[in-house]
């Protein structure tokens, strides 16, 4: 006899195992029992970021003084939240991409089709398919109307997911599988519009008044009453109907999914079908992939058109300050679109290769050609974004050369992103790697390595300050390609022990883990206590987050360096410690001397220095500990003990360049203005490490440098 409760518990455990274990890296590392991993950390960070965004979005609504306007704004927020939940429920149910992708999604896995899953269990699965929606609008409503909204939020979540489930049921019943794919891709538009409505709810409420539906519900929430019983009952009944329909249809849900229509296609042209054209043709034939990219590219085009129209027919050209802010915002949002398109398309393309492996492995295709075909396709897809941004700049009458320099950097960064992502997809989603599924393709540690420098380029306060990030991006893209060229061999050789990445790539993964740990902890600390000054990050927050993540970086480095030999702390010749300290003092002094000059230069470039609110003794203590103890230890351990070693191993006879590159990476992650001095410090520490083979002198240099700069700044 089958019990609903047992099935649900089993599925819950399955989801938890998926969440933790599918975060384990390549095949060789896969072990039962390893729960805590860097990738898991990243997933938690993703959810925490969404929750934090929800809280942030609530602020403008709470700030509305007028009761009528506030309830109107809440009404729009409700509408947005329900649209997001319903469309996510539909989106996660649909066969996007290759059939192989379905195996990566625990709730749509083919194994569930042949087990006796109860209709009620299936209904719960539909509810769980709304993905990250509750993490966004739960905190949003809690922030906007407080804890009394909790029951209402749950009801609305049920309603949204129920509507989505009903939509899936209707589509499965009446549409053939090949018509579902475009609809699934189109749900992306609804998700984005829902998020847009949710984020702009305050503005919508003020401008347009109450949302057509749900206004009585919103009014009750705004006034602190329970929503009308009749409306609650209706919402729950609708949800129940939706889930029931889903459960009933889903029993035979795979009826239509497995059937693809046999289309006959006419081959046009006589040009040979090389790998580049093959990628393009497959993209066009696979409708869901095509619609996905079309939608993603259409949004920037529409945005451009709206903006151009607004400028042409609005109140003349906007002010210069507005133009600059607008230009940077545009580039940032376009870069986010680029990241979304690249990761989505690259993972679909690699999934395709996994399926076609028997064919590919029998053909004499060099790995570089396999990569080049995908890289070229992605680069082509970046072109509309670059052109759109250029058109916008023209219409905004951008005349500042630094904005055009930004545009050039943006174009270059997108090109590097396209090339790098194709390689990363092979590294993280190739054969046998049980990577994501339980979230977004962006939520992978490998992807984070390349997203950070891309965002560094577009968000830099000045194009000159974007150069270090650009350099880091080029290095990451180059190394991703190198590592992937080794790894693409799985197309020929599926053996278990195939080394999937280079030591250098693993070192870079370690750093991505450090970054995600730092942001996650800052988010958690930020949610626990409120910074005293809203504009400046509190010292205690920064110090605490840094201390914990530095500990994690040190532990990770010691645990994962693996094949790079033993770490030595103390140098054979003790006087090198003193030499290190002297080097550190020298670079520190240089930094202190150059500080006013750098500040002046930045002022001339129009960049404001970042301020940190010290906030009492605890903050000073924590920040001091972080700067004087944790940073020298953890960063030297990582940048010299791991990254430089991995670089040296890889460069072979040209290993003399290893300290230079490691120092560049070290400087690139430090705030822009300090870049040249920190590079010098890195060079000194790197050279000392290369000569002595011990970390001590580098740590001494780093600590001395930090101490001097810290003392001068107080």
């Amino acid at each position, binding site marked *: *006899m*089958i*019990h609903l409760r*047992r*099935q649900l*518990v*089993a599925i819950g455990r*399955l989801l938890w*195992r*998926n969440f933790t*274990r*599918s975060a*384990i890296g390549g*095949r060789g590392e*896969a*072990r*039962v029992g390893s729960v805590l991993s860097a990738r898991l950390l990243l997933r938690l960070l993703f959810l925490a970021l969404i929750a934090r965004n929800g809280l942030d979005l609530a602020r403008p609504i709470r700030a509305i003084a007028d009761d009528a306007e506030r309830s109107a704004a809440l009404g729009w927020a409700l509408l947005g939240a329900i649209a997001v939940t319903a469309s996510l429920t539909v989106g996660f149910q649909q066969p996007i991409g290759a059939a192989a992708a379905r*195996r990566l999604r*625990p709730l749509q*896995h*083919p*194994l569930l*089709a*042949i*087990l*006796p*899953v*109860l*209709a009620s269990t299936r209904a719960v699965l539909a509810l769980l398919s709304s993905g990250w929606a509750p993490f966004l609008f739960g905190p949003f409503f809690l922030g906007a109307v407080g804890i009394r909204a909790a029951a209402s939020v749950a009801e609305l979540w049920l309603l949204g997911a129920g509507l989505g489930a009903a939509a899936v049921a209707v589509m499965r019943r009446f549409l*053939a599988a090949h018509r579902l794919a475009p609809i699934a891709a189109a749900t992306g538009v609804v998700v984005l519009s829902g998020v847009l409505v949710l984020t702009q709810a305050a503005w919508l409420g003020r401008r347009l008044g109450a949302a057509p539906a749900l206004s009585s519900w919103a009014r009750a929430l705004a006034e602190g009453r329970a929503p009308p019983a009749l409306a609650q009952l209706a919402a729950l009944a609708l949800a129940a109907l939706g889930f029931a329909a889903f459960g009933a249809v889903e*029993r*035979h849900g*795979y*009826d239509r999914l*497995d*059937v693809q*229509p*046999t289309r006959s296609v006419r081959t046009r042209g006589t040009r040979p079908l090389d790998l580049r054209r093959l990628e393009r043709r497959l993209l066009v034939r696979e409708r869901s992939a095509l619609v996905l990219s079309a939608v993603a590219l259409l949004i920037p085009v529409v945005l451009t058109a709206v903006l151009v129209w607004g400028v042409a027919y609005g109140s003349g050209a906007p002010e210069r300050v507005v133009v600059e802010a607008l230009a940077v915002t545009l580039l940032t949002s376009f870069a986010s679109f680029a990241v979304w398109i690249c990761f989505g398309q690259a993972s679909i393309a690699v999934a395709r290769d996994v399926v076609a492996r028997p064919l590919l492995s029998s053909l004499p295709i060099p790995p570089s050609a396999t990569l080049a075909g995908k890289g070229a396709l992605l680069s082509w897809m970046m072109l509309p974004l670059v052109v759109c941004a250029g058109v916008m700049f023209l219409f905004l009458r951008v005349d500042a050369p630094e904005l055009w320099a930004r545009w050039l950097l943006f174009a270059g960064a997108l090109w590097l992103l396209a090339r790098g992502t194709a390689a990363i997809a092979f590294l993280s989603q190739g054969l*046998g790697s*049980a990577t994501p599924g339980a979230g977004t393709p962006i939520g992978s540690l490998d992807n984070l390595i390349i997203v950070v420098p891309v965002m560094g380029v577009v968000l830099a306060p000045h194009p000159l300050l974007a150069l270090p990030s650009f350099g880091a991006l080029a290095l990451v893209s180059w190394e991703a390609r190198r590592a992937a060229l080794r790894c693409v061999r799985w197309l020929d050789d599926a053996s*278990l022990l195939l080394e999937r990445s280079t030591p250098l790539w693993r070192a870079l993964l370690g750093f991505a883990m450090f970054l995600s740990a730092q942001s996650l902890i800052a988010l958690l600390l930020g949610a626990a206590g409120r910074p005293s000054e809203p504009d400046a990050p509190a010292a205690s927050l920064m110090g605490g987050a840094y201390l914990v993540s530095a500990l994690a970086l040190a532990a990770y480095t010691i645990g994962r360096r693996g094949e790079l030999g033993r770490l030595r702390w103390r140098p054979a010749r003790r006087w090198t410690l003193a030499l290190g300290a002297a080097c550190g003092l020298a670079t520190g002094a240089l930094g202190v001397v150059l500080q006013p000059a750098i500040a002046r230069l930045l002022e001339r470039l129009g960049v404001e220095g970042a301020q940190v609110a010290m906030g009492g003794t605890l903050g000073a203590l924590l920040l001091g500990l972080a700067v004087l103890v944790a940073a020298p230890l953890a960063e030297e351990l990582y940048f010299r003990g791991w990254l430089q070693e991995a670089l040296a191993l890889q460069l072979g006879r040209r290993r003399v360049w290893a300290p230079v590159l490691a120092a560049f990476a070290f400087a690139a992650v430090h705030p822009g203005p300090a870049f040249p001095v920190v590079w010098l410090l890195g060079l000194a520490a790197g050279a000392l490490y290369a000569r002595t083979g011990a970390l001590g002198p580098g740590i001494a240099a780093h600590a001395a440098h930090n101490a001097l700069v810290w003392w001068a700044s107080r």
Partner: protein
Amino acid sequence: MSPAIASRSQAERTPAPAILRAEGLSKRFGAKLAVAALTCEVRSGEVVGLIGPNGAGKTTTMRLALGLLLPSEGRIEVLGVDCASDSVRVKELIGYVPDEPAFYEFLSGRETVDFACEMRGLERQAAWERLEPFVAKLELAPELDRLVSGYSHGTKKKLALLLALVHGPPLLLLDEPTNGLDPPSANLVRRLLSELAAAGAGILLSTHLLDMADRICHRLVFLDRGRLVAGGTPAELRALAGLGGDASLEDAFLRLVARPA
């Protein structure tokens, strides 16, 4: 006399109750007719082979039996349960080995079996006790605690068979059960199937290995483009094709499923 032959003659003497029964079963995918008015049955203790060229409708028939597909016409039932209307109940009665088995890559083999036990509402302890002899026979013990993502194709196939036996089902549906297995493993599986049939299970298997079908199937169903071309014991089919008792089943198949060139 080998056990397989013993049970074969037994099955011929007293017709056992039918476990699976299809009547006028049809399935249409758009304009394509995948299964056309198929009528057949599988009785207890009997191994029935679905034989046919690629695209003959073998897998579709099995998916109809599981309730994964809805028939366009006709009816298919397992022990009186209509497969189309109660797919949950039907899946409790069937152990299914798909042609390309799929598992959660991040579960170990043991955890996968545990998961199936929970989903089927079985006592885990008792299920493992029942599975123990099969684990030994399939030589799966050293593999069970590794993640499925590292399994070879053959090991995945064996795990799928183990998973199909978790609940001791009266009917086994096996899609190309020896596909991807090395000869010794294929031999193991063949022996296992004969033993299961002797113990009273009904087995419907699809294959294109006519030699294997000849050795373990009591009855064969020849399919072509969804239609039943011929059915009966291997001897009857040889006679139907006008061949002698020592002719190969392949010749009989080629004669009966003759396609215009």
